[in-house]
């Protein structure tokens, strides 16, 4: 589904991502773990086109997508959520979700200004689908809410609904369970499983190890921007490098 090769990104002197390569099989849950500052978010930003890599390449279904702007990737079926929420607080909750469907709708300026035939109907269908998505991710209580009036946990889920509205085939979730309580985290895990059953490949950054080990087919471990290990949850659990980095990272402390 997605192949990353020798991908690097540096900010000034900081090598946020360094020579990282891996392959995400279609239909899997793929997790990226690592301590804070390991480069997980930067990796997502590189793949989703928000950052231009210093070196390396990203291939989506065999096609080179390095350097393609994010808005084109959305059309190709790649979507994501953000660790630091990116919600449009000037819109209602449901409008935020509908924005996710942007590339699936007729979004021409003149089409909108003069209400071209079909535009009202397709927008209504989009709204109904947005309601379904909000229900699916557990945001049902906020269907009539304004985004600016929603608590953190609900916004987290709202971002997932928005990402799903673009009908992605590859979905990146950056710490989807951060800030969620126990039940909500459990629901999020169920949701991820459901999405995979629907044929979406899901890539997750997550700190909750239990959750990661439960839902992932494969795991990538990053440390200081570099690939520390990659494999099945079983392999990762036994990997001596991972154990060293997670349990006895003393030598790295300043």
């Amino acid at each position, binding site marked *: 589904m997605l192949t990353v090769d020798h991908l690097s990104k540096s900010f000034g002197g900081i090598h946020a991502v360094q020579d990282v390569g891996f392959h995400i099989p279609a239909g899997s849950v793929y997790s990226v773990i690592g301590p804070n500052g390991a480069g997980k978010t930067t990796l997502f930003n590189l793949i989703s086109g928000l950052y231009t890599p210093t070196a390396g390449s990203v291939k989506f279904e065999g096609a080179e997508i390095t350097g393609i702007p994010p808005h084109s990737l959305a059309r190709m079926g790649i979507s994501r959520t953000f660790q630091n929420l990116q919600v449009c607080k000037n819109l209602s909750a449901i409008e935020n979700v*509908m*924005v996710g469907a942007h590339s699936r709708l007729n*979004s021409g300026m003149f089409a909108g200004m003069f209400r071209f035939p079909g535009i009202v109907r397709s927008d209504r269908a989009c709204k109904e689908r947005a309601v379904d998505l909000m*229900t699916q991710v557990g945001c049902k209580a906020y*269907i009539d809410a304004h985004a600016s009036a929603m608590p953190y946990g609900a916004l987290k889920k709202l971002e997932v609904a928005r990402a799903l509205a673009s009908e992605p085939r590859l979905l990146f979730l950056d710490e989807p369970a951060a800030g969620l309580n126990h039940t909500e985290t459990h629901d999020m895990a169920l949701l991820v499983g459901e999405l995979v059953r629907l044929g979406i490949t899901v890539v997750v950054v997550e700190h909750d190890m239990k959750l990661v080990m439960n839902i992932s087919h494969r795991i990538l471990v990053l440390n200081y921007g570099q690939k520390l290990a990659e494999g099945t949850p079983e392999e990762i659990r036994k990997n001596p490098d991972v154990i060293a980095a997670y349990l006895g990272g003393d030598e790295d402390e300043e």
Partner: protein
Amino acid sequence: MIKLPGANGVDSGSLPEEVVNRFRGLAALAAVLIILPAFLPNTFYVDVANRVAILAMNAIMLNLLMGYTGQISLGHAGFFGLGAYGSAILTARYNVPPLGGLILSAVVTALLSWAVARVILRLRGHYLAMATLGLGVIITIVLTNEAQWTGGPDGMPVGRFSVLGYSLAGERQWYWVFAVLLFATVVITQNLINSPAGRALQALHGSEVAATVAGVDVRRRKMDVFVLSATVSSILGSLGAHYFGYINPGIADFVQSTELVIIVVFGGMASIYGALIGAVIIGILPQFLAGYDGWDVVAFGVILAATMIFLPRGLVPSLAAAMRPKRGATC
């Protein structure tokens, strides 16, 4: 797939709330526009109404750019001036028919604003404000200095507007032209705002990153809305010039641009009726202060400061929020 209970407010059987509100607003606007002339005793008042209508349309276009898309412009009157002087020069010196002058000026303004947008819409916040301010100032300076074309600071006369041999004359005829255009502007901008394109504009205002990841070509959208609002302002400038009969560089200057910004902020950012009502209040205010030269500027300042303090969201959104019945405890 879950079917929606009516309580969600997305009940597709009956008309949604916003559709009802929309038609209520448009009906009220149409009624006011139709009966207003009967209450205007003489052409002086009709003239005020016409100028307010022009101001309102300009403010709505600026609100599209500022309130909805979040791109500040402190030079918007410049585009109005380009349309006005384009029409004036083309009709007076090149014998171009008025409609041709209007269209040609609009095309030139569209191209110019497109070229300018390519450069300045990379900027944000204060930098964009400064760049648009500079653009407005440059346009005013050119209009003032190129006296052999524009008549310089004294301005120049503009002939009547005519199409297909029919010529518009008198405040009352123009009233109907501006009334229809104002109504159309409200309808069309409302359509836009409620369409996927309009949602994209508001989304990039809320979060450029979110919008771009959702598939919105942020740069292109900013350019589109900048060019659209500049071009409409140019068309209004052309019509305004023919209506006024005489123009000077003051119509394009910083004071005019600022007045538009004040209208948008006072009436309400991201509110079409806000821009409209703001234009009515700010537009007729100088009439009450006619005897006190310079005090209208002071009044603008006071209004702007008071708005920021007491109605930070602007007049119409604040009133709408106050009047809306409180929703159930869904959030």
